[in-house]
Every structure is written in C-alpha cells, then in structure tokens.
C-alpha cells in the first residue's frame, strides 16, 4: 500500500539521512526510531508531503504521493496542539471535520470526546484545559475522521498512563481493521508487532 524508496533529506548543510526505504501493508505499523536531531520529525513531514525530499519517491496505492487521494487517506498529528484555544473541544472537532469536507454530527463528535475521557469538558474553551487534555482533543480526530494511514509524531508525549493505554488500544484497533500507522517515539510503544526503522 505504502512504498517508500531512496528517501534523502538535509537541513541546511547537514545531511540527515540518505536512501531510506520501507513498505507498509494493511495492518502493519512502522516505528521510526533515532536520537534527538536524527531527523525523525523531518522524516514524518517529508512522508506526509509538507516538505520536499532531496531525493526518493513515495507511492500510495501505486500512485505517487502526495496526491488528493493520499491526503484523504491520511491523518498526520505533529508536535503542535493544532487546536484553537478560543473554541471548545466540540467546536474544534466539528470545524476541523468541516474543513476536511467530512460529515460529522454533534453525536459523533461527542462520542469521540467521551471515548478520550473528556466528558464534561466538551463545552469549555480549550484554553482552560491541561496540556494532556488538549492533546486528547487532537487525538479525538483519529475517531472522527476515517483514514487508513496514521502518521503520529511523538503522539505519546504529555499523556498520562491511562491515555497512553487508550491511544495504544486505538492504534491496535486501527491496525486490526486493516489500517496502517507510522509512529515516532523514544520510549517503547504499547503496540504489539511493528517494523522498526532506525535513523
């Protein structure tokens, strides 16, 4: 499904990595590992098409990415909170879905927030939530937006023990349903199996 070959990236004069390649099939996930500054985040941004690669090619379902189809099948969650502080979690979720052109009614959005343990917080401005709770608002998008490929950069940061387990379960369910995931993390991840890629 996802085929990556010959990927190279440099920042300024520094070569981060050359000739990185891997492939993912339905139900598989990739753990991108490496020290600080080894280019994990650069790699993720390159994979989703935010920045151009120096060399290499990414194919999604046999077609060159990034394409509209690729973006439709992709969820990327990076370091940023990517939520609006002045809006409530409910508004954030529903507006993000509307921008993506995905239908999402209030019931669906509420169900996702409750699953992520934000019951009773859905009408508060995000501003008053804690860092971990903000992160959960963002993660709720994994439930409201159907996508085959999850690219999660340091998604386990700022999460408490319960949330780490919850996200692990979400990813496991996603994989069991034939999805794919690419994760970065320093610590061991609570998801079984998985290919490893060390930068």
């Amino acid at each position, binding site marked *: 499904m996802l085929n990556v070959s010959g990927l190279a990236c440099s920042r300024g004069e520094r070569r981060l990595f050359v000739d990185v390649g891997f492939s993912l099939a339905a139900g598989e996930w990739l753990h991108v590992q490496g020290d600080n500054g080894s280019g994990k985040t650069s790699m993720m941004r390159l994979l989703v098409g935010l920045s151009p690669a120096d060399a290499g090619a990414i194919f999604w379902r046999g077609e060159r990415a990034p394409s509209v189809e690729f973006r439709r099948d992709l969820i990327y969650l990076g370091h*940023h909170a*990517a939520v609006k502080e002045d809006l409530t979690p409910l508004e954030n979720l529903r507006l993000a879905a509307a*921008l993506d*052109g995905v239908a999402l009614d209030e019931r669906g959005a509420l169900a996702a927030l409750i699953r992520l343990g934000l019951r009773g917080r859905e009408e508060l401005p995000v501003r008053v939530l804690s860092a971990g709770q903000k992160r959960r608002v963002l993660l709720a998008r994994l439930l409201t937006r159907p996508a085959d490929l999850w690219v999660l950069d340091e998604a386990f940061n700022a999460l408490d023990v319960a949330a780490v387990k919850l996200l692990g379960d979400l990813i496991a369910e996603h994989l069991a349903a034939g999805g794919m995931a690419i994760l970065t993390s320093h610590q061991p991840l609570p998801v079984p199996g998985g290919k490893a890629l060390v930068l």
Partner: protein
Amino acid sequence: MNAFFATVRRDLLLAMRRKSEVLTAVFFFVIVTSLFPLGIGPEPVLLKKIAPGILWVAALLATLLGLPRLFAADHVDGTLEQMALSPSPLGLLVAGKILAHWLLCGLPLVLLAPVLGLQFDLDASALGILTLALLLGTPLLSLIGAIGAALTLGVRGGGVLLALLVLPLYIPALIFGAGAVEAHIAGLDVGGHLSLLAAMLVLAAFFAPWATTAALRIALE
C-alpha cells in the same frame, strides 16, 4: 465549497471570541482620519480636497494592521499544517480565510467611511462614490495583502517587511479608489475608475489565492 464556507465560519467565530483584535483596526481607521483635520486645520475647502486621499490611505494602513494575523495564529498552533494536509484544496481554504479577513477588517471600513467622510464636508453623492470605491477596493487590498502575509509568515521582522512588500502593490488601488471620489467632486465621470477597480479585483480574486497558497506551502516546508 462547503470547506470554503466552513473556513469563513471558523474565522468569524474565532474573531467573535476575540473582538478586541478586530476593533483595533477599526479604531485605528477612525483615529487616523480624525488626526488630519487637527494637523492641517479646519478649513472646509482644503479638507474636502484632501478627503478622498486621506480616507483611502487610512483604509490602506488599517487593512495592513490586520494582515500579519491572517495566517500567523494558525501557523503557530499548527492548524495551518492541518489545512495544508486536508483533502480539501488549500487554495479554497485560503480563499475562505481571505474572505473572512475582508469581512472583519475591510467591510467595517466601508461602512464607517461615509460617517468619517462627513468630517471632511463631503456631500451625499461623494460619500456614495467613496463607499462604492471602498467596497470594490478593500477586497482587493485583502487579496494582495494575503500574498504578502503568506510570504512573511514566520519571518524575522515580518510586520515591517510586510508593509514594505505590500504597500507598493497597493498603489493602483489607491490611485483609482481615491481618484474616483476626486473625479466625482470635480464633476467628471467615475465609471472608468470604478470599472478599472473592479477589473483589478477580478484579476486579484483569480490569482491572489493561488499565489498565497504557493507562498504558504513554502512557509510550511
């Protein structure tokens, strides 16, 4: 198109939660135009002569005031990144943001201009032409300004740089916008001015979102 309207709704909703930011630009417009009679003197003939230019230059600067915020907040909190990766075309979302910017920063100026024009002893028909010219011209300012805002996104000293990049490009809008009112006061036909302003608006509406999108993708790299 739903994504376009969703973007407009989102930006309006965000502005409503933070009214002060919108009101700043409007107050700026009011204060700057009110300063000129104080600096020049209250002579009605002179004020009437310089009114179109002053109101237009003030509108230009007031629009400029809101431009750095057009993409900056979305850039900082990462929502711009999500927009760039959205299945909806980024150009459509950007166009929605520009429209929202005009509704918040341009339209209030259009509505206020007739009131401020009274300070300069403009008669009713001149006020009408002024409003019409601003109605055609301020969206043009938002469109051109968006390119500059995208180019200077996250750049050191971006605000001042933005003014340097955008103000020369505003000159045609200023000339035809202020010129329309001047021509009307001088008893000349204003059709030419207004149709040229409209033509530039159409041209900008077509190209500016596209150029802005390209600039945003570069800023996100």
